[in-house]
């Protein structure tokens, strides 16, 4: 029982970071119809920037917000320089151009910080909290709490503030938004800024859990199963789906993989199932697309024939 609770807390902590990253993709999709494959690169870049900040001697309290602001700047730059010229391009081309950004940012990090994994500076104190026999390290605790707080804070901002209202107007009906005096293209830039900033923080949190490497960009791709599960246009859905996928991965790693491996070893020559927890989200994604393409919370769209 403690083991299950242990897996659950770890899954929820990682899942909340996924949710934070996925929120950004949904936000951008809602207001500009762009599916941002570069989100994984933003995740990685944010972690490297925090790393660079603390290398310069900044305390984490400053390094993380600084990385957030820099990432927001990169997000705006990406939107203005790359996405704006492609306003009228077909969906496929826009998808591909964000993939191009992913490659460029990855190459940049590779050139500056090298291909080897780096030891991420200790941002949160060592040690663990014990609740009912379940150990939660401060790393996981802060990662989970911080990303939940940020996600909820963002949702509150989006729902209840004037700027959030303008965001929703611009996403809902750009023409009408323009007609009532909302500067829609600035709103799109703002969405990119927020999305990249949140992704950057998410990357920093992931790096405190798993270490810092170029592989963080691939973890960003897990956000895609999350958004499809949650429904592409639902921010709340992304939050719930992120947590669900975190749990699923954690349970796959801790319970399902060992069980399957025992079965396989007994009946076949296959010895290991490898990193099953990394594929499970994609298998789930295929299942969701087949059974309920609009996701759990999404509205029925025209994407389904």
């Amino acid at each position, binding site marked *: 029982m403690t083991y299950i609770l242990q897996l659950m807390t770890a899954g929820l902590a990682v899942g909340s970071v996924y949710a934070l990253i996925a929120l950004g993709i949904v936000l951008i999709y809602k207001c500009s119809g762009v599916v941002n494959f570069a989100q994984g690169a933003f995740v990685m870049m944010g972690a490297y920037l925090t790393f660079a900040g603390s290398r310069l001697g900044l305390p984490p309290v400053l390094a993380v917000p600084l990385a957030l602001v820099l990432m927001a700047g990169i997000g705006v730059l990406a939107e203005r320089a790359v996405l704006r010229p492609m306003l009228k391009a077909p969906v496929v081309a826009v998808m591909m*151009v964000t993939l*191009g950004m992913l490659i460029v*940012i990855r190459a940049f990090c590779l*050139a500056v910080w090298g291909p080897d994994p780096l030891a991420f500076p200790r941002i949160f104190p060592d040690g663990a909290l014990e609740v009912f026999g379940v150990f939660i390290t401060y790393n996981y605790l802060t990662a989970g709490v911080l990303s939940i707080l940020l996600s909820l804070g963002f949702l509150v901002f989006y729902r209840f503030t004037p700027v959030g209202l303008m965001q929703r107007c611009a996403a809902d009906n750009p023409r009408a938004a323009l007609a009532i005096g909302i500067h829609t293209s600035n709103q799109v830039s703002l969405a990119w800024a927020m999305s990249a900033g949140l992704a950057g923080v998410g990357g920093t949190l992931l790096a405190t859990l798993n270490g810092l490497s170029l592989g963080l960009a691939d973890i960003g791709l897990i956000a895609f199963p999350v958004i499809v599960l949650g429904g592409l246009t639902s921010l709340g859905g992304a939050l719930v789906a992120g947590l669900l996928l975190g749990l699923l991965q954690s349970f796959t790693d801790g319970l399902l993989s060992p069980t399957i491996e025992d079965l396989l070893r007994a009946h076949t020559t296959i010895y290991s199932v490898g990193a099953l927890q990394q594929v499970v989200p994609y298998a789930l994604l295929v299942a969701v697309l087949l059974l309920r393409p609009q996701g759990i919370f999404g509205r029925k769209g025209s994407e389904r024939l």
Partner: protein
Amino acid sequence: MKRAQFIVGVAVAAAVLAVMPFLDRYVAYLVTIVAIGSIGALGLNLLTGLCGQISFAQAGLMGIGAYTAGNLCNAGLGLLAIPLGGLAAAVASVVIGLPALRLRGLYFAIATLAAQFILEYLFKILEPLTHGISGLLIRPPTVLGFAIQDDRANAGLAVALLFLVWSGIGVLRATNLGRSFLVVRENEIVARGMGIDVARTKFWAFLLSGFIAGIAGAISGIASRLANPEAFSFALSVDYVAMIIVGGQGTLTGPLLGAAFVTLLPEAIQRIGELFNIPSILSALREFAFGMLIILFLIFEPLGLMAVVRKLRLRLTASKPSGKSPSATTEAV
């Protein structure tokens, strides 16, 4: 395909094959990778360029072709392993594609992304067939008692197959099926109104494109004598999408230009890097150039190299009016 185009194709293929025995081994290697890239790009172009479905599972399908052909080659089937590899990939492509028939555009792309990751995972864990991460060693096939293991023989094989695939697609484009691909790409409702069975058309697109991808994978496995999961990763899928974008979607020769560009660019940067002795940031530079290339092409020349070629040709024909320029524009599908 126009007759002139076909004749040019025959001439180029024959010329390459004729000089092959005298080529440097490195040049032969370059010819091989460009030819393999071209075959794969032609296959993806069938689905994306002609039928309008973007796919990120190309590398996975090529992997299926490589592993199938590799195992059959080791079992002593010789060159027959190549079409069988294609067949296996065609089946996989249909399996991926059929459920995705209900999905469009974005959702289809994400579904193929998932398929790519699942295939990559299967390559790693199905030890009995794939030998896991270390990869499957492939014995060179023998033809008439003559083993294909030299770089030049590989290049010859790849070019010959490229020619077959290229002319096959050229013929296909002029058939009813080829034309209905285009209508489905442009507008599915119109296609249905014209009496085209959209689902059946897409089924054929998946099948043929998967078959060609499998052939490309099979030769790449045979040429490198190894099939390993690393070689058929998501990054390769991105390479192939980049090839058809850089080359020119939906055209017959564009994918070849794109494949040459995308496969030779890293080689060129490698050489330049060796020249200036900066190996440490070389791979970063290579990736950076590749990413920038995709972005710049999409922003400034979304129709790819073919559009550049066409503009140049139009400018040339405009300076000496021969009345042939209209045909160049009608060809622009």
